[in-house]
């Protein structure tokens, strides 16, 4: 990287002042590795349409084939096994990547495990029964609260202080910048909380909440209509929420959970971010986290799936052969063509993959009114960069001494989380996971993502965090970078009610779809809910009796 181009890159990705500050110091260039989904093979075979051979195809039989080993697919397999399909050959999970977990995957080094993507789940509300069951299996549920929500073990609840915010040379505890806030700022914050609290208390005639995860438990008719048609920013404007620090908080929330600015986020999703976490008591649900983030949940689910997992498989076609048979065609890890014949298939891939490998779904989409705009709007995926910084020691910091989530007020990045925070390892080596969401339109975001190399993204991360920790450069031993091209589905303005998509083409004969993008937001609870829902549809169709977990 030469001087001017480095400055240009940093200016584009971090802003002029950060670039100027970073360019005053020579860049440190720690070692590291570039990670990304195995796009090349997938693109070659699926997007570019490699033909599946007619002969020399090995055939395998199973009762249920699950395509995709992310949180949705693993949850489906988990639900099937728990529901009684517990023979090794009853269920087969086919995953494209060498490792399962999707965007909840994680890494491990001598010091700690660390996340590569999703890193927390709020304590489930009463409605999220499947999540409570999963947590029970993890041994972290200590009882039930009066409202029926699980009481979670202390060690899993995010250790205080949860967040800190860097502003003008100092770290402040919490995400809202109280320091220097005017009376009007605080009055607006109070009013904002009241508005969110009011949405959280809304119940429909059946007693269902407007905002709750899983969304399948939310009211069908209360919330989305009014909110979905405008941006979160517009919603705030209408209500006179003009306080810059409140706007910052809301914009940060949108970027953090959805990878979109508040101007582009549907107000429904913006309110959802805040309101869905409020339990019956009106207090924000505590967060659960592990050193490896949601990788902990994935690890448990993968353990349950065990020998039923097949990694490195490319699925080309999911062919419906009538009401009771489906053939999943593709190549195994060794590159040999395989046809897995099953009674049912659960396609737990993002929509843009599903519509390429399930011809029946593509046909159904083509028949839908406004199909093209559905693709353009409803299933928009954001690009993310995640960098893991391996530190030999903790850099200095002024103000609040440490926190789990560390956010810079003046940065387009999302800051970093500390992998060792939850384990109480407060000194010495650690791993920081830095997040950066590219909020541009999908194609532009992906081009920008891929335009910078591992070294350049590492430089961006160090320049970003170097503003808050001047001695960081000398303490970083390596920076591994993950470039996520399609990280998460993004709930844009006008994306339409999530219900409409959820209901549209969710199953077709023996094929059932399961993915968080059906909910319009990317959350572990949603992925799990769809996986469990699809598995229960399958159990029902196969005549296996099992009380619902949902």
């Amino acid at each position, binding site marked *: 990287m030469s001087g001017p181009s480095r400055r240009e890159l940093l200016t584009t990705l971090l802003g002029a002042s950060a670039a100027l500050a970073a360019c005053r110091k020579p860049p440190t260039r720690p070692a590291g590795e570039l990670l990304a989904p195995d796009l090349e093979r997938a693109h070659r075979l699926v997007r570019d349409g490699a033909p599946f051979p007619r002969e020399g195809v090995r055939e395998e039989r199973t009762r249920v084939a699950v395509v995709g080993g992310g949180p949705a697919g693993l949850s489906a397999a988990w639900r099937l096994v728990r529901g009684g399909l517990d023979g090794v050959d009853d269920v087969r999970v086919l995953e494209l990547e060498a490792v399962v977990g999707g965007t909840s995957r994680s890494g491990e080094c001598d010091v700690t495990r660390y996340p590569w993507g999703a890193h927390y789940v709020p304590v489930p509300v009463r409605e999220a029964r499947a999540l409570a069951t999963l947590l029970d299996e993890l041994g972290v549920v200590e009882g039930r609260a009066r409202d029926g929500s699980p009481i979670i073990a202390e*060690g899993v609840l995010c*250790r*205080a202080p949860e967040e800190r915010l860097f502003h003008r040379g100092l770290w402040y505890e919490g995400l809202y910048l109280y320091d220097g806030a005017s009376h009007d700022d605080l009055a607006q914050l109070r009013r904002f909380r009241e508005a969110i609290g009011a949405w959280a208390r809304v119940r429909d005639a059946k007693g269902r909440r407007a905002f709750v995860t899983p969304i399948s438990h939310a009211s069908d008719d209360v919330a989305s209509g009014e909110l979905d048609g405008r941006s979160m920013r517009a919603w705030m404007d209408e209500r006179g929420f003009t306080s810059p620090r409140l706007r910052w908080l809301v914009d940060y929330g949108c970027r953090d959970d959805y990878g979109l600015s508040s101007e582009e986020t549907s107000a429904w999703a913006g309110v959802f971010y805040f309101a869905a976490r409020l339990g019956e008591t009106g207090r924000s649900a505590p967060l659960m986290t592990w050193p490896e983030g949601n990788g902990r949940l994935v690890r448990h689910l993968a353990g349950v799936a065990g020998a039923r997992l097949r990694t490195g498989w490319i699925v080309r076609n999911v062919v419906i052969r009538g009401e009771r048979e489906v053939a999943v065609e593709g190549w195994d890890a060794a590159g040999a063509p395989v046809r897995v014949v099953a009674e049912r298939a659960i396609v737990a891939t993002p929509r843009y993959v599903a519509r390429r490998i399930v011809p029946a779904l593509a046909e159904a989409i083509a028949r839908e009114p406004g199909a093209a705009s559905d693709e353009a709007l409803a299933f928009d995926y954001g690009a993310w960069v995640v960098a893991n910084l391996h530190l030999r020691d903790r850099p200095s910091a002024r103000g609040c*001494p440490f926190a789990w989530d560390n956010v810079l007020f003046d940065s387009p990045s999302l800051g970093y989380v500390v992998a060792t925070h939850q384990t109480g390892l407060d*000194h010495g080596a650690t791993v920081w996971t830095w997040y950066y969401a590219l909020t541009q339109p999908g194609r532009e975001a992906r081009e920008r993502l891929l335009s910078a190399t591992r070294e350049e993204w590492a430089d961006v991360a160090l320049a970003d965090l170097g503003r808050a920790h001047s001695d960081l450069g000398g303490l970083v031993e390596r920076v591994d970078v993950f470039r996520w091209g399609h990280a998460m589905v993004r709930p844009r303005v006008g994306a339409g009610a999530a219900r409409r998509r959820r209901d549209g083409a969710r199953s077709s004969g023996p094929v059932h779809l399961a993915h968080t993008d059906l909910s319009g937001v990317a959350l572990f609870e949603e992925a799990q809910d769809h996986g469990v829902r699809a598995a229960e549809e399958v159990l029902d169709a196969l005549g296996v009796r099992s009380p619902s977990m949902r």
Partner: protein
Amino acid sequence: MHASEPREAAPRPIRRIWGPPPAVPKEPVEPPARKAAVSLLLLTVLVIATCGLVYELLASTLASFVLGDAVTQYSTVIGVYLSAMGLGAWLSRYVNEAVARTFVDVEISVALVGGLSAPVLFFAFAHLSWFRLALYLVVLVIGALVGMEIPLLLRILRERFEFRDLVARVLTVDYLGALVGSLAFPIFFVPKLGLVRTSLVIGAINAAVAITSTSLLRGSLRSVTGLRVRAGIVLGVLIAGIVAADRLTLLAEDGMYADEIVYAKQTPYQRIVITRGKGSFQLFLSGNLQFSSADEYRYHEALVWPAVSVRARDGLPTRDVLVLGGGDGLAVRELLRVPELLRVTLVDLDPAMTRLARTMPLLRAQNEGAFDDPRVHVETADAYVWLSDPVNAAKRYDLVVADFPDPNHYALGKLYTTRIYRWMREHLSGGGVLVVQSTSPLFARRSYWCIARTIQAAGLAVAPYHALVPSFGEWGFVLAREGALEAPTTLAPSTRPRRALDDASLRALFVLGPDMGAEPVEINRLDNQVLVHYYEEDWRKYL
């Protein structure tokens, strides 16, 4: 002075040319340049005399700081120093050639040894058991070198003055220098710079004198380059020392402590400072007093014996004990006095702290070499991480002593949560007892009760108690165990007599006055860390 020195005879003709006419010996007529050189040489005498006295005062003061008993330290150091000066004066007779060169070399040596004396002696104090020997050795070397200075200078100057004039001038300036040194030392050096910086600065002045005297004595020196290089190196070392002195004691730090800092070290975990006052010394971790040697027995007897007495009352021996924190070894010392004790496992975060407690004579004497006892095992780990490690999950102890620093930081707050108390509970054997140092129930009343309630919330019965430790004030502890817990009434036997406790005073520990009574508080959990906030608010009223 020795009269016959063949080599020195050579310059005499010069004296004849420039020297005073015999008729007016008291008023030698000298050209202005030479006169200036003589004045500068006399100024040199003044400076080295000042430096010499400061070294003497430095060694005496340092010795009385670290060893106490100022009268003995001043007497012995001054005695050794003066007699060493005599030794130096005597040794100067063996300098036959190159007197000027030897003088400059002596200056360089004084600069090095004297300049580094305070840092070296502080280091020796912290790390060597034979500190006194090191002290007198350093004093001896400096004294001998300083003792050589004036005789050598007299010989250098003798061709420029008549003898009686020479002695009068040099000794006058010498004693004047002593006055300057003795006034500057208490008024300027110690209060403004502290001992370590004073030592380095005085050494640097000595080195500067060495460099200027190479110019003043150029006529008597064959080559000045080698001397200047040597002096320059020494000056460089001392200046580097002044820059690095912050690592020994921070300039700003000296004002923070009531007494003199005799040891300071920044570790990756905390700042360890030991101060020495009249007849006692204190340990501070990150600015917080951990103990004063004057009254720590009150604290440590109160920490250990109520728990041991509870077990003794129930007919249970205290054989296997886990101490969390307490890297100073004082709680361990107290535990080693339990007659039936078989094993103590101490888990402390900072290896520098346990190493210091093991090796520093001052601390060793206080903990009675506790870490050398074969019954004691030290593990270096964060107690929180150690307790959560599955490797340690099966270990059970008759007594767990949680002796952590006060919860003034989130990293320490985790050591007072329900989560860690549950782990401690799991590590108790049948009838096992937990005792927790719990800050002051008087100064930090909510913090104290928050700790007590948090231990209760972890499923243990508690018995709150307190002890008066003058250097801390009214101090609090919480005794806990599963099932019911009643305060002990009879003191368990010890191999040594207790100073603060007997049966009656043991019972009195468990009586808390109304101003220390229970207050409504929240439970301290990992995900709220309320204790850190209570603590900050409670102590703000007093600090």
